[in-house]
């Protein structure tokens, strides 16, 4: 069977599985549609959360971001940021919102801050974060299809939309949860198989996490060899090259951490478990499942980087001839992810940090994961599996985000604000319609992406960190905080973060409108725009607390609500 046929079979089989699950888990009530009747086992929810969480960016791009763009150590911001957030989530957010026991994040903010304005502002913040995020997923689906199945980008995107439409509109949270569990199994298997093989080939150690610290065939440590090789080519050392400055790395890590704990599509996953205590353990299981991929990714990053360099330059000074480059290299050139330009016309490929000498002119981050199986000469079914895994990662995250968006619209805007008198059946119908329009809207944005392309996922974290997270945190831990404080704080936090990003990256990411230029010299204390969420969060906290001092304290029922959500037991006194 050819590679193309195998890929069609494997991807097709995974899609049939998702549709079968969708048909078996239709939602009949709003309770089922929004929170899967709160009946999901904590381990199962952990698995679904892991799939919800790990997007196309984690699966396809992260190893490359670490190994190439961030040159090793600098990429640690993603590893620590995107996992450390779960500790905050498990201790500071998830158990209390689970105890609160309703359906959405804006609903909590509306009730806690006794204000429809607060609810609507939260809905707007939620939509800004989630839409930025979902565009990346839709693009991921289109790209994965077009690379592996050789369809057009548009056909790929439409096929993905049909699948998501099917199980998200039919099943709501129930359908999404069970498909996410299946998708987690597909994606983790697809990630681990090539990682284990490449680790075995390089170090003889089957566990990639240990392989990263092991020796190569020539007896030198892998990381030492990589450090030395990169220094010889004019790059910085792999294990020590800092991204920007220490302050920038700390800010970036902190932004991703608190952004993680403020992203609504992750938080609502913890509404689906039966108890408060299950919400805590479920966060632990989610992190276990996420860590399988996140501790493997740095190993893949280092090993694949070394592999590529050794393919191009097997011995120092002995360069690969362009004529003799392997088949996979030619294949990926056609997709535009790899590109060579024989600048000195010697028929050899020189790879170097010096752009005057470097002849590997295009080396896309995604290549580390996508071409990994071919570089390691693994069989076709492994390559097909990577395609199915990438699609599973993108589909599962897209579905989770779409649910967060559609429930904010149908539940918070319609039922709780505009049309409080609609019946349960009407609301269920409205939530299906909202989901259908969210899928279509996301598909439209995926087909006609706005001015910005890359880096939007990291931005969504900054926005969540600066807007929703402080409102949730103070709402739980600080009884005195008032609605005026929270509303102004959320607006200030998201405003300051958007303004900072826009002034460096252009208004709505149109480059010409950037008035300070995307220059590190103009960055605030050298903090890059993607890392600015933590500053936005501090602004939010400061504004909220200051305004709170000058406004009347929250009414008695709100104080009781806070007392109630802090403790798992049902309240006996009223």
């Amino acid at each position, binding site marked *: 069977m050819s590679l193309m046929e195998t890929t069609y079979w494997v991807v097709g089989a995974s899609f049939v599985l998702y549709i079968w699950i969708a048909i078996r888990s239709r939602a009949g009530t709003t309770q089922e549609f929004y929170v899967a009747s*709160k*009946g999901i086992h904590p381990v199962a929810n952990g698995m679904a959360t892991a799939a919800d969480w790990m997007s196309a960016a984690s699966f396809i791009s992260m190893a490359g971001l*670490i190994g190439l763009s961030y040159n*090793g*150590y600098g990429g*640690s911001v993603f*590893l*620590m940021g995107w*996992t*450390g957030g*779960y*500790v*905050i989530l*498990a*201790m*500071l957010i998830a*158990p209390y919102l689970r*105890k609160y026991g309703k359906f959405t994040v804006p609903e909590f903010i509306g009730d806690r801050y006794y204000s429809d304005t607060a609810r609507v502002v939260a809905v707007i913040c939620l939509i800004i974060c989630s839409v930025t995020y979902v565009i990346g997923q839709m693009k991921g689906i289109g790209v994965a299809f077009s690379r592996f199945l050789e369809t057009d980008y548009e056909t790929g995107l439409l096929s993905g939309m049909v699948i998501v439409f099917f199980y998200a509109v039919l099943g709501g949270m129930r359908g999404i949860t069970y498909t996410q569990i299946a998708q987690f199994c597909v994606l983790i298997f697809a990630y681990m198989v090539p990682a284990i093989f490449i680790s075995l080939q390089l170090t003889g150690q089957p566990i990639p*996490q240990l392989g*990263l*610290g*092991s*020796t190569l065939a020539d007896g030198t*440590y*892998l*990381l*030492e060899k990589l450090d030395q090789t990169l220094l010889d080519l004019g790059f910085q050392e792999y*294990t*020590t090259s800092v991204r920007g400055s*220490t302050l920038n*790395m*700390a800010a970036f*890590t*902190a932004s991703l*951490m608190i952004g993680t704990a403020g992203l609504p599509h992750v938080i609502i996953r913890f509404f689906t478990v*039966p*108890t*408060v*205590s299950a919400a*805590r*353990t479920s*966060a*632990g299981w989610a*992190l*276990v499942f996420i*860590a399988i991929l*996140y*501790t493997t990714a*740095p190993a893949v990053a280092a090993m694949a980087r070394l592999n590529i360099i050794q393919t191009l330059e097997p011995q120092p000074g002995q360069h690969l001839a362009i004529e003799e480059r392997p088949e996979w290299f030619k294949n990926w050139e056609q997709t535009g992810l790899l590109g060579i330009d024989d600048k000195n016309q010697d028929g050899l490929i020189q790879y170097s940090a010096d752009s005057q000498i470097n002849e590997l002119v295009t080396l896309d981050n995604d290549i580390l994961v996508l071409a990994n199986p071919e570089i390691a000469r693994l069989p076709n079914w492994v390559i097909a599996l990577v395609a199915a895994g990438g699609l599973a990662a993108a589909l599962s995250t897209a579905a989770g985000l779409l649910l967060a968006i559609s429930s904010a619209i149908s539940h918070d805007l319609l039922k709780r604000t505009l049309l409080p008198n609609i019946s349960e059946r009407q609301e269920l119908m409205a939530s299906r319609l909202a989901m259908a329009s969210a899928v279509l809207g996301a598909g439209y944005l995926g087909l006609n992406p706005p001015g910005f392309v890359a880096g939007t996922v990291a931005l969504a974290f900054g926005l969540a960190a600066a807007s929703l997270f402080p409102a949730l945190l103070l709402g739980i831990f600080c009884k005195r905080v008032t609605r005026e404080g929270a509303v102004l704080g959320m607006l200030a936090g998201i405003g300051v973060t958007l303004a900072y990003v826009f002034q460096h990256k252009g208004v709505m990411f149109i480059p010409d409108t950037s008035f300070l230029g995307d220059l590190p010299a103009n960055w605030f204390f050298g903090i890059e725009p993607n890392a600015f969420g933590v500053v936005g969060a501090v602004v939010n906290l400061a504004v909220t607390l200051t305004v709170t001092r000058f406004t009347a304290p929250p009414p008695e029922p709100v104080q009781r609500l806070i*007392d109630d959500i*802090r*403790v*798992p*037991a*049902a309240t*006996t*006194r009223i």
Partner: protein
Amino acid sequence: MPELPESHVRQIYWRKNRRLMLVLGTIWFVVSLGCGVLWVEPLNTVQIGGFKLGFWFAQQGAIYTFIILIFVYARVMARLERQLGLQEPEA
């Protein structure tokens, strides 16, 4: 402690919860932003197997510690709730 009024038990619960969060939160900070970012250079002078220690914390160790922290928190809180009789009725 059935003889205490429930509001008092809830206060004890909340105080212990905050103390536990402070302890675990400190460890969380030390292993990630501490060992992984702020003190990475001195730690990198220590070599364990093929890893520089600071690099290992940033790319592996911090993540393993996070998992342990969550499960410790979940277990201690569940025990505290049983002791104080504040557990949630199973749905």
